[in-house]
């Protein structure tokens, strides 16, 4: 099916999320839609999927203008979408999820389970997905869940498949598998719109590339173009992809973690026997696929969880078993991974969020009373120092974009003298400009001699920042390797392969030149 978008515009208030966008997707083509967060990619796809009505412009399928008022219309017309966050019911089986909303029924309105299972098996075999239709979705790894989403779309005869940031949740190996699947689908005649901001993947798989910036198409790129060229097009200015990272000058061991274990309430081992140290002026990255214990490790360090056993020492002082308050007061700064949930109180003002962990202490609070003069002047200073774009510091922080909200959180944590900085996925969902800011701030702390623990699921981020990399898999440390270890070796370790074997498998720990250049646009 040939898809054409003609002059699509979508406006929110007086903000044009999309303006006059033209896009053609040929049958069997993988068309990458490249742009920063906030460029308008998702809005465009939501227009195409019937979630939004365009203010101007037309959607043309095989030469015929169509109008979608709901995703149902889009699905009926042969458009399928795999969202970044899956829309699967965890306690249902694969087959049940695939037919949900479109169930084959037998007499008396009963669901035809056999038919549903056959549907899954058929598609799964055709594209070598290797999926058990009776497996429960909650038991499947993320990469496989994504395939279930794809099967779901294909089972409704999708001729055009929209993949919205599909690789955000995958390991490098899973990403490769997905790219293979995409190629097979395209070879079978399915058109794919591939939304991403990861240049490596675009170059690997796309037939054509359309770059969007600030709601407009700024041009086409070729898969053979260099990453720097694409990045500059995407951002609208020259981008130096290599972050200027000065040589590390690690000092004494500052944070010492020894044999740390954490057992969940149900008896499962969330963290098992974890040991590492972080030196002053060093960034230790914790790498791993989402959900392998990084979150638990960070939360244990910060006092949100109490370790079952093991030791945590900061400059010789034990932190294990202390309250969050005590740990923060001992000079630990913490940027949580889920900023909306853990990092800020959406309904409170920006100025209040800037002192969220300090307002009890002078100058912000004295004898139980808040000093709003001090809080406001602190807000003005921080907003200026970190270049946060705000309407008024007294607006609720929920009115800020993700990048600006993150700057507020980073500003808060760095506004005091730190003895340890713990950051978890600090640039998730941010645009290139904000990523640069946040990375620069982290490096500045390192230069000041602060030990930094960086937990991140983005390998790109890790390779840019890390001096050493500790890889976690299922609550254990697989190994600790130098910061310039190759992406392939890290990928294997993230899948649980032992350090020695992983390094041997990719032919020694040579720094992978290509990768170290690519980093920044994670």
């Amino acid at each position: 099916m040939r898809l054409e978008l003609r002059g699509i515009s979508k406006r929110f208030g007086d903000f044009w999320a999309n303006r006059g966008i033209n896009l053609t997707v040929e049958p069997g083509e993988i068309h990458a839609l490249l742009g920063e967060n906030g460029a308008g990619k998702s809005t465009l796809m939501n227009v195409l999927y019937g979630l939004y009505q365009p203010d101007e412009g037309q959607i043309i399928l095989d030469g015929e203008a169509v109008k979608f008022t709901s995703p149902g219309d889009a699905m009926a017309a042969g458009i399928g979408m795999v969202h970044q966050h899956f829309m699967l019911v965890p306690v249902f089986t694969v087959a049940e999820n695939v037919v949900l909303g479109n169930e084959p029924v037998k007499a008396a309105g009963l669901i035809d389970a056999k038919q549903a299972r056959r549907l899954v098996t058929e598609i799964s075999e055709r594209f070598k997905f290797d999926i058990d239709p009776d497996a429960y979705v909650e038991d499947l790894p993320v990469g496989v869940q994504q395939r279930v989403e794809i099967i779901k779309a294909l089972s409704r005869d999708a001729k055009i498949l929209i993949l919205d940031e599909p690789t955000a949740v995958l390991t490098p190996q899973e990403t490769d598998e997905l790219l293979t699947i995409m190629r097979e689908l395209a070879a079978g005649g399915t058109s794919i719109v591939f939304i991403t901001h990861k240049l490596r993947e675009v170059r690997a798989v796309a037939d054509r590339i359309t770059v969007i910036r600030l709601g407009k198409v700024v041009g086409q790129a070729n898969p053979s173009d260099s990453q720097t060229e694409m990045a500059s097009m995407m951002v609208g200015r020259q981008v130096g992809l290599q972050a200027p990272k000065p040589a590390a000058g690690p000092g004494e061991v500052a944070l010492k973690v020894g044999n740390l274990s954490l057992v969940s309430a149900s008896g499962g081992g969330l963290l098992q026997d974890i040991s590492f140290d972080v030196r002053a002026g060093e960034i230790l990255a914790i790498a791993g696929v989402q959900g392998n214990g990084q979150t638990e490790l960070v939360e244990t360090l910060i006092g949100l969880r109490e370790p079952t056993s093991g030791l945590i020492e900061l400059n010789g002082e034990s932190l294990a078993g202390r309250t969050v308050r005590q740990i923060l007061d001992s000079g630990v700064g913490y940027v949580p991974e889920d900023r909306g949930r853990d990092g800020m109180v959406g309904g409170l003002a920006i100025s209040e969020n800037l002192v969220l962990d300090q307002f009890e202490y002078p100058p912000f609070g004295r004898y139980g009373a808040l000093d709003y003069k001090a809080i406001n002047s602190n807000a003005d200073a921080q907003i200026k120092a970190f270049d946060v774009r705000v309407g008024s510091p007294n607006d609720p922080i929920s009115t800020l974009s993700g990048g600006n909200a993150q700057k507020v959180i980073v500003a808060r944590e760095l506004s005091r003298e730190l003895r340890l900085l713990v950051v978890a996925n600090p640039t998730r969902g941010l645009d290139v400009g904000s990523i640069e800011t946040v990375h620069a701030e982290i490096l500045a702390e390192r230069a000041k001699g602060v030990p930094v623990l960086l937990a991140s699921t983005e390998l790109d981020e890790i390779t840019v920042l890390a001096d050493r990399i500790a890889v976690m898999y299922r609550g254990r440390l697989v190994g600790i390797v130098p910061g310039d270890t190759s992406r392939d070796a890290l990928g294997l370790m993230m899948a649980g392969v032992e350090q020695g074997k992983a390094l041997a498998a990719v032919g020694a720990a040579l720094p992978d030149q290509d990768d170290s250049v690519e980093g920044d646009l994670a």
Partner: protein
Amino acid sequence: MTSSNPLTPKDEPPEGSANRSSASPASGAAPAEPPPGSGPVEPPPGSAPAEPPPGSAPAEPASGLASQPPLPGRFTIALKEILSGSWLLSILSILLALLIGAILIAASNVEVQKAAGYFFARPSDLFAAIWDVVSRSYAALFQGAVFNFGADTPVRAILPITQTLTASTPLIFAGLGLAVGFRAGLFNIGAQGQIILGSIFAAWAGFALHLPPGLHLLLALFGAVLGGALWGFIPGILKAKTGANEVIVTIMLNWVAVYGLGYLLTLDAFQRPGYNNPQTPAIDPNAQLPLILGPNYKTHLGFVLALVAAGGVWWLMEKSTLGLKFRAIGMNPDAARTAGINTDRCYVWVMMIAGGLAGLAGSAQIQGTERVLTSGIAGSFGFDAITVALLGRSRPLGTVLAGLLFGGLRAGSYAMQSVTNSVDVVLVLQSVIVLFIAAPPLVRAIFRTPDPEAVRRLKVTARAARQAQLKEVGR
């Protein structure tokens, strides 16, 4: 929640683009280009839940379950929804309730029913009858609650408003306590029990002790606070230590208090000599709250104390560190915990403050209005106070106003009863008000008022846009 809802736009507006766009030929060339800073049209992750786009229903039910963080409790969400409503909504709810009340009054009136029987012969009779009964009912309500035009003496003419003030005093106290809890995210249903405990303590201090003036009053007041705070402490500590749901615990404690009071009143120590029905001895005059409008009216110092308490609650919630903690916990307990706030300790504090204020409601009853402890001392104040706090959007001023309204409904209901022959209409009015407050979208749909969240977002957008434009021009 929002951040993992796949149906909300994930695109975040580009920031830092005010600089960037000057370097970008595409946007620099178009002056009409919306300023890039004009971001938040699309809610950033973590903002208030955006309304799902129309027509998204088919995909909605399964949305993002795979990667969703644990959902906040159902009560918490409902509470947030209710509290996010606007003042306008409160007023519209009251108007709607009055309208529905009018329909009920008319429908239940014998004259109206008679006139409806020959509607097609003389329709004007029906309308006249409706007008007559509805206007007389509401006039009676007003005269019973505010000012009695038909009274023979000025003293009697303003009697209704003083009764309203008296009736509103416990409502305001208890409503303030509940409001503190609601803003901290605690759905405290236990005001009834807390009022009873406050009454018991105040009454005992009032009749069993004999102290000099001033001291006795203060001690009885302190007893009321202590009793209420104790009854708040129990659900607070249970929630903090075991995670017990405060809704259930407080409801159960209400019954413990009700039957506990019943039992106490059977004891000799609590029986008023010479009386057959269970009631305690009257409290000492020294422990009574003085009447502030002279001996003709029952309005007592408690009303003034309630206003002072409202000021205190305002200071606590808006100007104190403890209040900021409460607000942070109410809006996002995860972030509060991450910022080093001891949420468990705060839960206990919140419940004790809420209980203490409800206890003062009990003292207003014992030391002000009733002066003896009976099993009906708390009436339905504890439950009405929930409505009062919600109608007042959990703000002190709002709670005072809502308390006055409900005090007026209570005081006026007796006069109204003489027209409608039943007190039920007033109760229906109260219930309908609750119903509408709990369903802001319904009221919005009826009056076609805009979604406040959307309006706020639009405002912020417009301001950001203007600023970005100014910056652009200044370049």
